[in-house]
């Protein structure tokens, strides 16, 4: 059956310095359909939708809406054209009521008592779409799923015919997710088109009519959901590229380096981020944690390194219990941390390379004698580290932020690994780095492994995980859904686990 395309994104290309986020992507959406946009992090889904919503302008390509090419210059523009978006981080005024939030900036509201004016319509829409929420309630008192309903109402009130939802179930419980799907089905019936960004296969199968899979900025395929299955989708999502495994000696498994038992913790928003995670890393092995970002990996690393409280569970570093101890104590127990946010957390940008290199150990001799620092000792150490770790910098006095990303990372590694720690927790160590820097970082991690440390590698890059790990654990929704030995792991199996299937 030939149905007029409501919306078509044709050959959209969008690049940022150093990366092609969208590479000639074509997406076509019909009225009355729920169209899922599936892919790993970095596949380009959010960028594409940002282009559609007017946040970015494409470098090339066209947006055709209702048969006519248009230029969408801003979210305001998109809204005016009937495109609405429910973002992952809600843009709501918490202190105001639902009605006030919906009425904000809405054309046609009267000058006096604007909130009252929209109340009736909110109730009507609520009935029609199953988006029940109390218009008089202040937003801060609402549950997350109710707040999401407010965002949807905002879009509907402004005449959205196309609704974009960005990972909407990432903040919902399974029951609430079901409620959302019911709403989406109602919207379908009313003739809206829904674009649903996700990485969860279950949801795609449950609610979508068609799905477009993106990988590394390109469209892999667009298929009707009825004519595919999870295996096939997983395969499309992670691809069948040749893996590059680094030559490494077999793991010298010899004693426990890091052990985690039944960890539970909450995210900043108060939702459970870790639900009873347990694993262990032996000395001389690399355990890779695979998974799409947002499934608890960040909170996991924070708990392990002393930057977040665990509500329940234990963490042991080299046999010592370091549960809920400070970052410093964890480090001194022997656990080094390569943080995810290199510049914000890993270095002090305006301080020199040398000072950054002693950030963890400045209070001990030889760097410090009494209250005084010993600059000579610090510079000696710095010079050695710069040579040993091949940090490219004009001098040891250069401010750290002047270094390139790869060299900042090497600086961090030098600092963390120079003490020969027994445990290394590396979070996305090569994100944003070029090939040669990546190789160097990998070599350094392997060297530590060779020397008997246990390495926990958290990464979204399956290639990296497959190349370096001895064993691979997959995280989904705050739990470890499976652990496989590297020899038995393949992309398909991992891909399925990453989207929720137990391995």
């Amino acid at each position, binding site marked *: 059956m030939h149905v007029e395309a409501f919306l078509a994104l044709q050959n959209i290309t969008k690049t940022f310095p150093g990366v092609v986020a969208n590479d000639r992507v074509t997406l076509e959406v019909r009225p009355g359909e729920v169209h899922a946009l599936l892919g790993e992090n970095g596949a380009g889904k959010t960028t594409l939708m940002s282009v559609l919503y007017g946040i970015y302008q494409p470098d090339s390509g066209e947006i055709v809406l209702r048969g006519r090419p248009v230029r969408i210059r801003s979210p305001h523009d998109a809204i*005016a054209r009937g495109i609405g978006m429910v973002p992952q981080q809600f843009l709501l005024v918490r202190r105001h009521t639902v009605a006030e939030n919906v009425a*904000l900036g809405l054309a046609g509201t009267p*000058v006096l008592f604007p909130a009252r004016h929209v109340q009736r319509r909110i109730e009507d829409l609520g009935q029609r779409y199953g988006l029940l929420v109390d218009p008089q309630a202040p937003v801060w008192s609402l549950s997350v799923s109710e707040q999401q309903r407010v965002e949807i109402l905002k879009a509907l009130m402004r005449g959205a015919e196309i609704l974009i939802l960005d990972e909407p179930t990432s903040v919902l419980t399974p029951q609430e997710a079901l409620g959302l799907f019911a709403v989406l089905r109602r919207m379908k019936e009313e003739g809206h088109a829904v674009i649903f960004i996700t990485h969860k296969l279950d949801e795609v199968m449950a609610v979508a009519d068609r799905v477009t899979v993106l990988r590394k900025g390109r469209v892999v395929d667009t298929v009707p959901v009825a004519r595919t299955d999870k295996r096939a989708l997983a395969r499309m999502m992670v691809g069948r590229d040749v893996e590059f495994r680094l030559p490494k000696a077999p793991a010298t498994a010899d004693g426990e380096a890091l052990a985690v038992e039944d960890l539970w913790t909450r995210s900043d928003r108060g939702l459970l981020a870790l639900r009873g995670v347990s694993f262990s890393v032996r000395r001389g092995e690399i355990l890779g944690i695979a998974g799409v970002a947002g499934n608890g990996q960040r909170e996991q690393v924070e708990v392990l390194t002393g930057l977040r409280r665990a509500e329940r569970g234990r963490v042991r570093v080299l046999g010592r219990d370091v549960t809920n101890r400070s970052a410093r104590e964890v480090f001194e127990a022997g656990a080094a941390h390569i943080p995810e946010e290199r510049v914000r957390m890993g270095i002090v940008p305006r301080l020199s390379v040398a000072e950054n290199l002693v950030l963890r150990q400045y209070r001990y001799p030889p760097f410090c004698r009494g209250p005084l620092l010993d600059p000579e000792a610090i510079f000696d150490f710095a010079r050695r580290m710069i040579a040993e770790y091949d940090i490219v910098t004009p001098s040891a006095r250069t401010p750290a932020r002047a270094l390139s990303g790869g060299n900042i990372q090497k600086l961090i590694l030098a600092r963390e690994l120079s003490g020969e720690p027994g445990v290394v927790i590396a979070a996305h160590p090569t994100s944003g780095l070029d090939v040669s820097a990546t190789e160097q970082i990998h070599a350094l991690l392997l060297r530590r492994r060779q020397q008997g440390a246990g390495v926990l590698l958290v990464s979204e890059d399956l290639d990296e995980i497959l190349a370096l790990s001895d064993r691979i654990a997959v995280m989904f929704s705050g739990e470890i859904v499976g652990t496989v030995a590297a020899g038995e792991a393949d992309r398909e199996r991992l891909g399925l686990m990453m989207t929720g299937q137990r391995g």
Partner: protein
Amino acid sequence: MEEWVLNTIIRGLALGTPLLWAALGEVYAERSGVVNLGVEGMMILGAFSAFALAQTTGNPLLGLLLAAGAGAAGALLHAFVTITLRANQYVSGLALTMLGLGLSALLGRRWEGLPLLETLPEVSAFTYLSLLLAVALWFVLYHTRWGMVVRSAGEAPAAVDTLGVNVALVRYLAVVFGGAMAGVGGGFLSVAYRPSWTEGMTNGLGWIAIAIAIFASWDPLRAVAGAFLFGALFHLSFRLQTWVAPEPLQMMPFAFTILVLAATARRGGRARGAPEALGVPYVRGER
């Protein structure tokens, strides 16, 4: 005895009026997300310009009009530096105060000691007008479209921006409005309360006005209570001079402010009720 109380009330109302105008202005500015510590500077500029024009033309109301303009001009400078150039709001306000105090002292030299023949009575229709204004501003803030936009700009500018409303423009308008109000407040001092001009005649009232805005949790009606309370307090410090040294009483509003801030504090945040985006320059890109 009753005369004493009545007197206090009247003079409290009198001094409370300039405080109220300035505080209401600051409430609006801060509600939109911009802290303006330049109230003292804007008030004194208002005091001077009101006096100068009233003296020359014999019309105190015209003086107040000019005062509004002077305050607004100062506020515009602050708005430009903090909204467009995104500089530190606190220091900018301080600079405005320095500038205002210096400029008014400079320009006001030849007006010092001159008498003002046509003045406004201390408590008059103007006072009642001020009260009505406060109610009106309260109504606008909470029950109209514009007020809602102002409040939203101070709470979640990103949300406002996405919906197509120009956050910078809203903030500019709120800050300039605040300046005009502060100017009129200052003008009232020199044209009604103590018809004269002396350099520095605001004596810290501008800072009290800021304190009132916080004390009132940024609510115009509560600001009324605060303004007249502090006004009465100030007056008492003069009245009780024969029994108590004036300075401890004069100190009170400032000590009070600290107490209020401490009492309304909340862990890891600003005072309870503070607009969430207060003091933070809005940069789009940070969605």
